[in-house]
């Protein structure tokens, strides 16, 4: 591929622009979170920190409920992840391996549920959870997060299943393996990148969820991270050091997960939306 010099300049400008708007804000948050308070609130922002301190992180971990919120968020996210993977992987298998009649209809229903406005379900789900005695519990959040993560996960998973040739299954069947054995021993290992992608997707969806958690959780000690951080934002005198450190630590787990399986995840996102 050859490009003209003008083409190169345009491309470099676009990439630079993207780098500045996507990556730099994250640098800015992190670099500010390790400055001493005087430098944080200084009217002349410093691009490279002139001071260095972990004091905001120390305060966050020692004298706030951050670790408690983190633990709650982890429970919700892991629960959501496990249930979403089981439900979505088996549904994707049923829909895209077995070539069922009516699968296009189910597929469309799933598309619609993914885009279904959560706010419209917030009120009736609140009522339902209250009748089931699940208000102010972790399971309530898991149930709801699965509802919003599973449909898109089916889409992503289907794309991964469809890359595995059917002949592999036939060969295993000839060797006397039953359907369940084929699924667990042959298909799942081959579809492992897909399973990882939907697991991460479910984790991320759950990690970010604010609206339901803000309404369904009442007691302070069961709050998740987004609700807990929002509590700090809402204070009259914002402690920026604490808030920035909290944001950095909240973003950290998803960034680490993404670093591990990011390529497959993006492949899954796009493949799910393509077909």
């Amino acid at each position: 591929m050859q490009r003209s010099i003008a083409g190169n300049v345009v491309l470099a400008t676009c990439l630079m622009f993207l780098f500045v708007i996507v990556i730099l804000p994250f640098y800015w948050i992190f670099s500010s979170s390790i400055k001493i308070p005087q430098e944080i609130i200084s009217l002349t922002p410093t691009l490279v920190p002139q001071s260095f301190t972990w004091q905001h992180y120390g305060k966050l971990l020692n004298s706030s409920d951050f670790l408690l919120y983190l633990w709650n968020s982890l429970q919700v996210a892991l629960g959501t992840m496990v249930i979403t993977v089981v439900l979505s992987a088996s549904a994707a298998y049923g829909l895209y391996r077995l070539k069922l009649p009516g699968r296009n209809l189910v597929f469309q229903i799933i598309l619609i549920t993914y885009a279904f406005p959560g706010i419209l379900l917030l009120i009736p789900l609140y009522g339902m959870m209250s009748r089931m005695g699940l208000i102010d519990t972790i399971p309530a959040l898991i149930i709801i997060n699965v509802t919003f993560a599973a449909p898109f996960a089916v889409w992503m998973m289907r794309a991964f299943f469809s890359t595995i040739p059917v002949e592999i299954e036939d060969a295993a069947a000839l060797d006397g393996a039953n359907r369940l054995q084929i699924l667990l021993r042959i298909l799942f290992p081959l579809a492992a990148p897909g399973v990882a992608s939907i697991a991460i997707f479910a984790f991320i969806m759950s990690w970010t969820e604010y609206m339901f958690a803000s309404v369904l959780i009442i007691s302070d000690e069961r709050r998740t991270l987004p609700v807990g951080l929002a509590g700090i934002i809402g204070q009259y005198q914002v402690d920026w050091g604490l808030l920035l450190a909290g944001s950095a630590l909240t973003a950290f787990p998803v960034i680490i997960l993404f670093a591990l399986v990011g390529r497959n995840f993006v492949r899954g996102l796009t493949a799910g939306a393509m077909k």
Partner: protein
Amino acid sequence: MQQAKDLPANPPQTRRPTFSASNLYGYLFVLPILLWLGATILYPLVSAVMLSFQDVGIIGTGGEFVGLENYADVLTSDRFWEAGGRSLVWVFGNAIVQTLLAFITALALKQVFPGQKIARTWIILSWIVPTVVVVVIWRWLLNASGGIINYALVGLGFIESEIGFFSSGNSAVTSVILINSWRWFPFLAVIILAGLQSISDDLYDAAAVDGASTVQQFWHITLPGLQPVLFVLGLVGTLLSFNVFDIIWLLTGGGPSSATTTLPVYIYETAFRKHSLSEAAAMSVVVSLFLLAFAVVFIRYAAPRLEED
């Protein structure tokens, strides 16, 4: 096609499952998710409709049947239609900004350059971090005292002194739209990129031989080739964008003086601040019907006409 092969030629003597038995088996895999979605979407929807005909204030309290009273209240309320208008502005504003940014990004990432693989993965960073982090990032960047954007704008002479981006109506709406677009455009970009990659290079080569300009190639090859992807994005993206609640709520709380109160924010306020649950349920039903109508019209007129398999 596929199914004929599975039909046993003779009365079942082979071990192969029959067509219907195989299907039954397959449906068992799909059943759990359908039950789950039925219990958490369908059932709540039905109970929302029932709630909308009563006069329940706070959840758990009883309510009388009031017929269509809530609907009459909602449909004659100026505030409801104003929120609807803001939702329209919100959806269009986001669509324009995000489409523009996503196309530029996708076209840039389609090129070959060093670090291309890393860029194609990490471009989505702003979409994977929690909304509350996005909110903190932008509140910090746009902070009126010492925020870097104000500092830069003053330094470059665009403004005379620091401004509060969320303190006047129009600038709050613009800021929230831009921030939400910042969060979502990478998601659109990677999907458009995948669509671009599915268009054969031969088409471009042939067009180049015929002397088509880059702009002509974009209109006659790229856009038609992207139609299936754009259809899905137009439908799902519009609905997802309509849904956005947390980023608005956490940035502005719907203010200043309701300037950013879109329908989701208004419904949330009505249900959990004003404690008029039934009225909020009636709004939800009305809004659901509007969205359904949009989806039906969109599918009817914008669906790609090629596949019939």
